[in-house]
Every structure is written in structure tokens, then in C-alpha cells.
């Protein structure tokens, strides 16, 4: 029973962190109509930033969070318009071309990181690493609690921004109908750049947290891309609220399979679930559809 509770809690905490970047992923799809393969790349880059700040400058891993947001926010802001142009270009199949572009970006990031930093795995040291918190019989690493708390704050902030501000309204309107939003005076081009920047920044912050909880190497990016896809499929592409639920579910599934079956089966379980959901209900279990 203790193990059960502990597994559940661990899963929920990780799910919280996953939720931060999958919400951004969904937002990007809603606004840009692009499935971003590169999502895992941004997560890993955030982790590496934190690792190098700690290793080279001796700074605490948590200090990398704001740096990651600003740095990758700017990079995302610059990439966003490129994606937008490809997605809305006059080539024969802009949808596939945009997919290919993010796929290429992901491959480029992965190859670049492997070339520059090799296959070694690094962990990100923080003030909380190694500490743990016991609630009754359940022992939880403090870093996971902090990361989840931080993730909840980011996700909460994002929801307030989306649902309580005028700019958030513009983003939601664009996600619903680009044409109508444009007719109402939303500058879709600039909004796309902003959304991709926001998303890349948030994703890199989540990467810092993931690097502190697990560890970071260039090959794990694929895993995070899979997470984002899983959540997107379960929630329905573009659904922001559903992403939160699906991310928590993903964290719990992963924790339980790792604990009770074996960690080599966790990816198999996630992929199998993803595949089944796609077959049974291609528009997502928590349907909102496209």
C-alpha cells in the first residue's frame, strides 16, 4: 500500500512537469497548426543549459530556469515566423512540409548535441538534490515536489494568461479560427512568433526541471517528444485543458509500469497505449477534436 501511494504520488509529480511543456505544445498546434517534433529537443537543451551553468559557473541548477526561459524564448521567437511561413506557403503540401521542418529541426538539434556534447549522461545539481520529504509512510524526493510546485505555478500562470487577458483571448481566438481572428484585427504573424517563443521558453524551463529530476543526454529528447505526442493524442490535438489531465495520467502510467513491471517496459506501455487510443478514438479520449 505504501509503495502504491508512493508510486501514485511520484507519477502525479512527474505528470505535473510534463504538463508544462505539453500545454505549450498544444497551444502551438492550436495557433500554428504545426506538430512540433522538436519539443523534446527544447527540453534537452534546457537541461544542458542548467548542467553547464552548474558545471562551468558553479551556479545552482534552479538559477538556470529564468535564463532558459529568456534564451529559448528568444530563439523560439525567431523560429516561429519560419514555421508560420512554411505552414502557410504555396507549396503543394504545406502541412507535411511543416511537419518535415520540425522533424528536421529535431534531428539537427539531436545530432548537434551529440556532436558537441557526446553520448554521456549528466545530472543537474540543485540545492534540493538528494533531499527528501516524508509524508507519513511515503517518502518523496524534495526536488520532485519543488519541480511539480513550480510546474503548477507555470501552468496556472499560463491559464490565467490565456483566459483572463486580452492577448490570451487573441491566442484562443486564433486557435479557434485563424481567418476570423485575422479579420478581427489580430496580427497572426506576430502572434505566431510570440506563441512559439513562449512555448519554447516554457519547454526549456521544464527541461531544467527534468534534468534536475532525472538526468540529461541528447538521446532522451525522443522520449519527451513521445510524451508530448501521447498527451496530444489523449487530449485531442490543440486541447489545452485536456493536456493537463492527460499529462498527469501519463506520469501515473509511467510510474506504475516502472515500479510494478520494470522500467524497460514503461516505453512499451506508453507507446502501446498511444497506439490503441489512436485506433479506438483518433480524436482523443478527452474529445475536443481539431
Amino acid at each position, binding site marked *: 500500500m505504501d509503495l502504491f501511494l508512493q508510486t501514485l504520488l511520484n507519477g502525479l509529480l512527474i505528470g505535473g512537469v510534463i504538463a508544462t511543456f505539453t500545454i505549450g505544445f498544444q497551444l502551438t498546434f492550436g495557433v500554428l497548426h504545426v506538430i512540433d517534433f522538436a519539443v523534446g529537443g527544447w527540453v534537452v537543451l534546457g537541461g544542458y543549459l542548467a548542467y553547464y551553468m552548474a558545471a562551468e559557473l558553479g551556479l545552482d541548477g534552479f538559477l538556470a530556469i529564468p535564463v532558459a526561459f529568456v534564451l529559448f524564448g528568444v530563439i523560439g521567437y525567431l523560429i516561429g515566423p519560419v514555421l508560420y511561413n512554411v505552414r502557410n506557403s504555396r507549396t503543394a*503540401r504545406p*502541412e507535411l512540409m511543416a511537419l518535415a521542418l520540425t522533424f*528536421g529541426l529535431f534531428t539537427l538539434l539531436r*545530432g548537434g548535441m551529440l556532436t558537441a556534447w557526446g553520448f554521456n549522461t549528466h545530472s543537474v545539481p540543485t540545492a534540493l538534490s538528494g533531499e527528501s520529504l516524508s509524508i507519513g509512510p511515503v517518502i518523496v524526493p524534495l526536488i520532485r515536489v519543488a519541480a511539480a510546485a513550480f510546474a503548477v505555478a507555470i501552468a496556472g500562470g499560463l491559464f490565467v494568461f490565456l483566459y483572463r487577458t486580452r492577448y490570451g483571448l487573441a491566442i484562443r481566438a486564433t486557435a479557434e479560427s485563424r481567418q476570423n481572428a485575422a479579420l478581427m484585427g489580430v496580427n497572426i504573424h506576430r502572434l505566431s512568433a510570440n506563441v512559439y517563443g513562449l512555448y519554447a521558453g516554457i519547454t526549456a524551463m521544464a527541461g531544467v526541471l527534468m534534468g534536475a529530476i532525472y538526468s540529461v543526454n541528447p538521446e532522451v529528447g525522443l522520449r519527451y517528444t513521445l510524451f508530448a505526442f501521447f498527451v496530444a493524442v489523449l487530449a485531442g490535438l490543440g486541447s489545452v485543458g485536456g493536456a493537463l489531465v492527460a499529462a498527469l495520467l501519463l506520469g501515473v502510467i509511467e510510474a506504475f509500469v516502472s515500479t510494478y513491471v520494470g522500467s524497460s517496459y514503461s516505453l512499451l506501455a506508453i507507446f502501446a497505449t498511444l497506439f490503441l487510443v489512436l485506433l479506438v478514438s483518433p480524436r482523443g479520449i478527452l474529445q475536443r477534436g481539431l
Partner: protein
Amino acid sequence: MKSRLASLVLLIAAIVVLALLPALVNNYWLRIATGALMWAGLACSWNMLGGYAGYINFGQSAFFGLGAYTSALLMGDPLGLPFFATIPAGIVVTAIFAIIIGAPTLRLRGAYFAIATWAFAEVLTQFVNVVGFTGGIGGLNLPPFLDERFFYFTMFAAAVLTYLVTWALFERSRFGLKVKALRDHEPAAEAMGINTALVKLQTFVLSAVTASVFGSIFAYWVTFINPKSVFGGDITDQMVVMVLLGGLGSLWGPAIGGVGLFVINRLLWMNWGDTAFYIAILGAAIVLVVLFLPNGIAGLFAKRPAESATVLDKAVDKLVGNGEGGHS
């Protein structure tokens, strides 16, 4: 007519040179040529679905791996079947998998299909990793057969057959027109009376089976396979890049992209060893091609601009009133 004659002469010349190649070069370069032919064929197999039908398959390595593993298991210890008997077996196994996977997933629109195929390939890889009879991560050994010429000619025959089938089916038949029609506008194709579900499935199975044949030959050729070497995502990555580079939906594009990229890969390997740099180059190549050369290298030589779906799309969107005016 004149240019047609010229290209026919060029084609025959290329085939003659390729047929005489074993007499001209040493074994080292013959191995590279064998690999180049394999990649040209694999790229073509991906292009059948990706280029002609417009469905991006991120799990094509699954079918390559299925062919390789079927051959390896059947040629292995208890059965010890002859190599050429295992190719049809691989085709049957792959076709069964492709139908089971394709029938439901091909209903999904573009992006979902891409994710579904990717997930399928990963499930299969993880499965092969953990179950016993496939040898797990350790992989399988095949009976060694070290005749470079045999593999060169087998690969050559497979590649020629692949391109011949592609040319006949996709460039010169009603079937090809159906496939292109559904790529350009699926609802319109359906309204014309094309059974799009069936046509898509046929294309998917053909594409899968082709990859499986190359997988079988590859396994026998390298005599040792493991999940990473035949199911790895890098295999699909390369096919995608080769087709994009060569020209999506063109007959010769995949051959140009496949041979070109494979030779670059080998040159890099000769100079710097097995390098992660190649992955970065693949990525950069995709990005650059998408941004600056959306019709690939073959598009540069096309006499008229490659057929663009947008005109048709726009006209039909007007008729059926597709709200966003997009492709969703």
C-alpha cells in the same frame, strides 16, 4: 520525343554500367554500391506512400526490420530455410502487419497518421528488445555467406524491380492516378468514386512489403542484426531525408537522394569514423530542403513546375466550402 530518347539511352547506359560494376571496382567499393542500391530502393518504398499518396510514415523502419527478422529467424537454427524462401515469408509477415496496422491508421489524417506509424515502429522495437525468441538487444546471427557479388546483384535486381513497379503502377496506370488524386484532395477523390480507403491500404502494403524485401537481403548481407540496426529510427530518418532531398513524389528523386546521401554518409565515415555529425547533417539537410528546395533536386530538372495541389485545392474548397480554406 527527343528528350525521351535521350533519357532512355541514359537509363540503359546506367543499367549497363551498374551490371558491369563488379568487374570494374574492388570489393570495398562494391559494398558501398550495394548499400547505395539498397537505400535507393528503400527511399523509393517510402516515396510510394509519402510522395504519391501524401501520407508521411515515420515508422517505415518497422517493415524493414520485420523483413530482416523474419529472414534471420527462418534461416536460423531450428528451420534453416534457404535464403530465397525467406523473402516471400518476410513479404507475407510484413503484409499481414501492414494490413493490421494500416486499415485503422490510414483513416487518420496526416499528422495523426505520422504519430501512429511512429508509435507502431517504437512498440515493435521495444517488443523485439524484451521478448526472448528475437535474441533481445543482443540480436541474431545469420549463416554467413561472404560473396559480395551475390549481394550486389540481388540488391541490384531488387532495386530495379522496385523502380519498375513504381514506374508502372504510379506513373503509368489508373492506380497511380487514383493515388495522386487522393493525395491532392481526398474528399474530391472520394466523390469521384475512388475507394480511397482501399487505394491507400494497397499503397501502404506495397510500400511496406518493398521495405521488407530490402530488410531480408540486408540481414543476410551483414549476417548480424539487432533491434537498433534494423528497427532504429535513424533508418526511417534517412529515408525521409533522401526522398525530401531527391524530390517528394517523383520517380527518380528517391534514387538521387538515396545514392547521394549514402555516398556522403560513407565518405564521412571513412574520414571521421562513425560520427554523430551525420545526424546533424541529416537534420540540416531536411531544414534546408524544406525552406529552399521544397520540390527536391528532381524539381530542379522538371520542365514545368511540379504539379501543385493548391489550385485544385482552392477550387474544390470553394465548392465544398471548407471553412478555413486550409488542408485540415
